[in-house]
Each structure stands twice: as C-alpha cells, then as structure tokens.
C-alpha cells in the first residue's frame, strides 16, 4: 500500500515533469519560458536543501554561498576559456570543494546545529559583502571583471559541447534545466534508497547510535553536504544562464527563500520543497508586480514572505506535504475504517543544542 503510493507519486512527478519539459516550449512565449527556467533552476536549489536538511539533518542556512559560487565560477571561467563546457564542469567542482573544506571544519569540529546554521549563514553573508566591493580593474580574474555591485551582465550563455560560439537558445536552456531538475530529483530518490542514503537517515535519527555501531558520522555528513553543495552550484550555473551573475545570488533574501521553500513545502520530503519553491516563486512574482507596477506599497515581498515563514513555523510545522498527508489519511481512513490510527509523530526539527 505504502510502496504503491510511493510508486504512484514517482509516476506523477515524472509525467508532470515530462509534460512541462515538452509541453511548455510549444505553448508559451519566450519570456515565460525564461521565467520557467529560473523557477526550475531555483527548484534544484530547493532540492539541495531538502536533501541535506530533510534527510541528513544538516541545517545549512547558507546554500546561497554554493549557488553564488557556482554562478560566478561559471561566468569567470567561461569568459576566460571562451568555451562553456569545461567552465560548467569547473562551476560544479569548485563549490563542491569549497563545501568539502567548510564541511571539514564544521563536522570535524562537531559543532551543534545552531552554530552550524549561523556559520553557514555568515559564510554566505561575507561572500556577499566581498563580491559586492569587487568593482574595478584590480578585481579582474583573467579577462573577467567581477564587477562589484553590478555583477557580470555579460555572463556567457552555454554553447553546445565542442562548438564554441554556438549558443543554446532560451528554449534549449529551458529543456536542459527542466531535464536536469528531473534527473536530480530522481537521482536524490535513488541515493536515499541506497545503503548510503538509509544510513544517512539513521544518522539524522540518532548520531550517537550510529557512532556506536561503527559509522564515522563525520564522513557521511561531509559526503552529503558536498552533494548538496554540488546541486546548489548546478542551480547557480543554470540561473546564470537565464539571468546573469550578481552579488544578490549570495544575499540574505536568497538564503532565506530556500529555507522558506523547504518549510512551506514540508521538511523531510523531496517533492514538498519543490512545490514550495514553485508556489513561492509565483507568489513572489505576483507580489513584485503588485508592489512595483500597480503601486501597492504595502505588499512588500519581504514582508509577506517573512510573515508566511513565521506563520508556518508556528501553525503548520510540517508544511504543505504534512497537510496533504493528513488530508489523504483522513480520506483513506473514512473510506475503509473509522478513526485513523495514530499518525506518525510530528517531526521535531530541534535537536540537542
């Protein structure tokens, strides 16, 4: 029964994904396709945090750091190489190495969750401040100016592998991004079903027990943290192709958004944060239009997002997927037998300080 539901879920995700992948380019205008590309790139970012926070219990407040590094590495390398395939590879590799370094300090130092959140947040903030002041010649890396506050508006678009200069069209970038999102989603699903993934979840449940069984918890956490970093970097690279890189990629609102997607979608699932991400993107866009175009000053996106986050933490701690599962259980319970058995214990995000 449970297994059936899970297979059904996978099929639904696949069908919807493929539908978007092949349907949207045929139907929509270019600007809409570019918007959808940005959504899909952000969805990969949501996936990265859904994985490391929801399944490994690593509360990283600074996924934006890897997101931004991925984008900037890509832009700088592509400008210097004059070709984007190796730049894209480097854009994943470098942030992953950075994640490994940061992870080493955090996991070998055995710092608590609260400190971990603060350290990762601080790292992304410092990167933001650093990149923000890189205007001027002395900050050129090879041929690439970092551009300070303005970023790199001339971020090159991906070319077909082996054909420098032959750029992908926006529709191709869209297909690539949505395709990679689907691959990343199912790769995460598979990863979680492997021995590594199951042990990772056990570590989330009880670190001490995992240690006493002989697992080196630090290595497992480092590995999954690097996977999360790589996914965030991939997201940054794709984002750079649909917009361009700028310091805002590292900024507090970006870090905050990722957390909000996961909380609103539902921690401990992969699909929840994806849905949360898309919903919140749509909402943010609408609010931005209301705020700036229609002149409703009071619908400031930050204000609405912030209030939503507080409300979800206080009143809907398990997010939309939690609400959906409860509703589903109630329906199924009504259909078969009266009062449904006790639900699974409410997920507690808190662990030892």
């Amino acid at each position, binding site marked *: 029964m449970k297994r059936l539901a899970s297979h059904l879920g996978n099929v639904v995700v696949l069908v919807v994904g493929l539908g978007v992948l092949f349907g949207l380019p045929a139907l929509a205008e270019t600007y809409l396709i570019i918007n959808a590309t940005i959504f899909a790139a952000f969805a990969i970012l949501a996936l990265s945090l859904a994985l490391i926070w929801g399944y490994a219990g690593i509360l990283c407040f600074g996924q934006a750091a890897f997101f931004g590094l991925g984008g900037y590495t890509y832009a700088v390398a592509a400008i210097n190489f004059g070709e984007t395939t190796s730049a894209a590879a480097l854009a994943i590799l470098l942030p992953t190495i950075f994640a490994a370094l940061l992870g080493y300090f955090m996991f070998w130092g055995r710092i608590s969750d609260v400190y971990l959140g603060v350290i990762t947040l601080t790292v992304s903030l410092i990167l933001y401040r650093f990149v923000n002041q890189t205007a001027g010649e002395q900050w050129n890396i090879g041929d690439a100016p970092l551009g300070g506050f303005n970023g790199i508006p001339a971020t090159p678009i991906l070319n077909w592998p082996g054909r420098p200069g032959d750029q992908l069209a926006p529709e191709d970038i869209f297909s690539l991004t949505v395709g990679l999102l689907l691959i990343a989603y199912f790769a995460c699903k598979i990863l979680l079903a492997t*021995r590594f993934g*199951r*042990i990772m*979840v*056990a570590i*989330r*449940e*009880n670190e*001490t*027990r*995992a*240690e*006493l*069984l*002989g*697992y*080196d*918890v630090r290595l497992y956490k480092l590995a999954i943290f690097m996977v999360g970093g790589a996914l965030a970097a991939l997201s940054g690279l794709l984002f750079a192709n649909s917009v361009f890189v700028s310091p805002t990629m590292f900024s507090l609102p970006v870090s905050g958004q990722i957390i909000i997607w996961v909380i609103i979608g539902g921690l401990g699932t992969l699909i929840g944060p994806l849905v949360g991400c898309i919903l919140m993107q749509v909402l943010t866009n609408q609010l931005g239009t209301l705020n700036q175009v229609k002149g409703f000053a009071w619908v400031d996106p930050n204000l609405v997002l912030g209030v939503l986050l507080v409300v979800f933490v206080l009143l809907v701690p398990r997010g939309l997927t939690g609400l959906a599962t409860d509703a589903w259980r109630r329906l199924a319970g009504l259909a078969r037998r009266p009062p449904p058995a*006790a639900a*699974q*214990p409410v997920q507690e995000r808190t662990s030892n300080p």
Partner: protein
Amino acid sequence: MSEPLLEARGLTMRFGGVVAVDRVDFALQEAELRCVIGPNGAGKSTFFKCLTGQLRPSAGDVLFRGTPIAGIGSHAIARLGVGIKTQVPNVFDGLSARDNVWTAAARVAPGRIAERRTDQAMERVGITGIAGRIVGQLAHGQRQLVELAMVIAPEPDLILLDEPAAGMTDEEVDRLVDLIRELNQRHALVVVEHDMQFIRRIARTVTVFHQGAVLIEGDVARILTDERVRDVYLGKQAA
C-alpha cells in the same frame, strides 16, 4: 595467561576537581562474562563511557587485544568488533525496528547477507513480531530489546552492556538472562548493573566499584557475601 581481550591500565577520569574514576586496572579474557556492580555514583558509568570512547580518559590506557583505544572515538572502537549498549536507550526513533537492526548489520555485511543477519539477530532477541513498528512508539523494554538486537547483529567479539535490564518487564528480563548466557558462549561480555537480583542470575566474576576505584573483584558467590560489599550497598541505602 594469554593476552587479555580488554584491559584498562591506571584509567582515570576527572571532571574539574571531581575524580570519577581513579586509577582503575581491569582485565577481561576472551569469552569471559564480567559484571561490574556498585552503588549509584561509584563511577561505573563513567568507566563504561571511557571503554566505549564516549569519554576520553584524563589518564591511563584502554587496550583492546593490545591496541590502545582510549580516545580514538566510538565509531573506531565499534569497528574493532565491540558492540555497545548505552544506559539510555539509543535507537533510531523514526525508523522501523527492522531498519534499526539493518543499520547495524549493514556496517559489517553487504546486501543479502546484511538482510539475513538482520533477521537472525531479531529472531535471537525475539522481536520478529514487531519488525515493522516504528521504534519511537514502542514500550521502553521493547526498545531495549531492539537496541540489543542492534548490538549483536554485527557479531561483535566483545559486548558492553550498561544497565540492560532497566525498565524491562519480568518476562523480558527472563529473556535477557537467557540471551546473555547464550551470547556468552561465543562472545565476551561486560555487563554494568546495579540490580543485584539480576546480577545473581547471570554473574560468574564480578568487579565491584566504590568511589571511583575497584573495591574488590572475584567469584560472584564470594563477592555477594563479602562484608565490605554489603557495607557499601547497605551504607548507601541507609544514607
């Protein structure tokens, strides 16, 4: 005498000004069953945590088959073939009982073999009937049994149990006594307990802790009639 399986030499643990374990020498032979007893606050649990790598001793050595293991970390000690059950049940609350035990078996065996070992361990402990239940929802005694199955699933050479009978029903204690006797046919065990009833049923050699040091060590019958041991226990109860 051959080289001991587990040995502590001059083991000392200080917390600030308090000496919880004071220059303890301890040796356990292969396939031996040793009970460590003592009143509350005698330093048993601190001693246990030094053996399992949860605490790094302030001074002294712990040797497993001659290799120093003090301060190398719990996971490294477990990898040498030591199964550890802590005083507070340490289980994966959000997972099913079977997944709990599988996690233990999967560390030492691949794929199918891990599955088989999981089932065997659950059978030996007698929890096959609750394999699918979420451990967080089980009664305390059942959780203890799940943890015990996790400890024996990797087939460790040495098993360290800290107060295994705590919170169990009489029936579960009976099963535990049988299980410890059966385990001892193949594994060496150290059982830390303060429940004398339980000790009487399983013990052969007993080490008595008092005020952080070894008070006396020897055959169970002799220990239980020893004046000093009685004073330590009764004195504690009177106070």
